[in-house]
């Protein structure tokens, strides 16, 4: 997935191809580090690097950005999912299929919404301070809405720092029954 995404950029990078190669290499290293350490942070960093590298592409950036974003999301999800299931001894086949289907569906919806946004961008509206403020407010509003939702569901608890590990199994204790 990473290779496919990287090739999409490098193929049309033109003069910035060296930069694209470098970005793809760094992303690959981060991805490997994340998988080995079973930590999601390097994986997200790899995705961020590939997102920035997309700017090296010389043409058709607006057209491809929704697909590229959906591809990055799929890559991120697959990597995280692999880490989550690495400690699992036995996996029912429908677990992977259902999760993959859900991610692909959401990525497709995201790509469609992104494409709509791309159409709006190509409508020729010139950049202005007012529009920038509106955009910033919309982004902030989206995050506030999500934060409120999370607070309502989970209270003030933060994310579990080690949830990729298996659920904490209770310890079996030898019986202390006494026979007299």
């Amino acid at each position, binding site marked *: 997935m990473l290779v496919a995404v990287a090739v999409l950029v490098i193929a049309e990078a033109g003069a910035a191809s060296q930069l694209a190669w470098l970005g793809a290499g760094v992303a690959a290293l981060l991805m490997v580090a994340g998988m080995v350490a079973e930590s999601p942070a390097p994986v997200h960093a790899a995705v961020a690097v590939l997102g920035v590298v997309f700017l090296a592409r010389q043409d058709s950036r607006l057209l491809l*950005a929704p697909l590229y974003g959906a591809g990055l999301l799929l890559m991120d999800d697959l990597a995280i999912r692999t880490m989550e299931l690495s400690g699992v001894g036995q996996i*029912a086949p429908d677990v992977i299929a259902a999760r993959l289907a859900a*991610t692909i569906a959401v990525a497709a919806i995201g790509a469609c*919404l992104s494409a709509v946004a791309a159409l709006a961008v190509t409508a020729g509206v010139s950049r202005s301070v007012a529009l920038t403020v509106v955009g910033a407010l919309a982004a902030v509003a*989206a*995050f506030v809405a999500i934060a409120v939702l999370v607070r309502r569901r*989970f209270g003030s608890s933060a*994310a579990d720092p080690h949830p990729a590990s298996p659920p*904490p199994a209770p310890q079996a204790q030898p019986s202390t029954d006494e026979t007299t």
Partner: protein
Amino acid sequence: MNGSLAPRTPGVLALAGAGLIAALATGRPELALIAVPFLVFAGAGLVLVREPQVTGAVELERVRVLEGEELTATVRVRNDGPEPVEVEVAPARTAQLAVVPAGTVAVRVGAQSEIEVAFSLRPRRWGAHGIGPVAIRARDALGMTNWEGRLGERVDLRAFPSEERLRELVAPLRTQPFLGTHVARARAEGIEFADIRPFQVGDRVRQVNWRATARRGSLQVNQRHPEHSSDVVLLLDTFEEARDEASGTLDSAVRTAASLARAHLGQRDRVGVVDFGGTLHWLEPAFGTTQLYRIVDALISSNIAFSYAWRNVDSLPQRVLPPGALILVITPLLDERSIALVSELRRRGCDLTVVEVSPLDHVPPGPTAADAVAYELWRLQREALRAHLQALGIAVAVWRPGGTLGPALEEVNAFRRSAQPALRA
């Protein structure tokens, strides 16, 4: 169930936010377009999430097994919620309980449905193993939240010690007046011929020995030894044990005690158990299969309890050590208190045999030359102790874990035969 955000969630939100902010800051809309799928993913994951309504139970194929025997544990997971949920099931694992599959098991439970997850359990050591409650982790469809909880109640799995079939047992010096399989010293009705004596009033005609009568010219009758049972008390020393990573002397001692209990009960002896250590437990001698189960249940509850308390024979109620009982002390001979107890019992004239569960295999010598010398000294010290006990008239059988008990018991019987006049004194 306790809900929390999955570790990936902040990362996804951060990617979406960073993309939007970078797009606004640099005026490059492509970055915002890349971020939109991440924003949709995070929003959908967090908006649609609901606490999963997962319930369940833990069931065992059976609650009593022999150590090393496999059985199946079934975890029933029921989803009462309106949406399918992904659940990871993780049963308890200990060094003494092997669970297959080794990791957790991930399953998907449909809405309003139930599934069964089977685990294979194998207790590596005798004892009571608590199975359940089982830890579970449920995830929403996009994996943005985790819900952790426990399913079911604790079920006790009792693993009985594996037993060795013994062909020969320690013959008791004294028997009890109950029908059994040991030839008593007394003379009465029985099978084993004892002696001939002159006829007395009340003797039955079938007891008359006609050949002897013809030879002596007066009526002579046969005397016989009756077959009686005996009382056997298994005294398990739980003051100290030598243990390595895999096993310890207590493990072997309990297996030995279980083997001896089964064999003696099979010979219609009354068998009792005393767990003599930091804590004191006992079972009074009794007959039968029920007693065997009681003994095994008592044995698998044995453990080493550290204590400074000095215990001796007076700590035991008199009814636990019936007069004339054969006392089999199963001990690693590591604690002064148990050695003193053995000596004290012998001084009181008890019929005593020591089965020494050798700790040598569990304690390897150290790496240096001085360690090797110390180890050799310790080994010689143990031999001297054994010789001292034998000088007191106590038969000592050394049993090394992994070997069979039969030869050790034969050795004991040989010692007891040669030392019988002294033992009876």
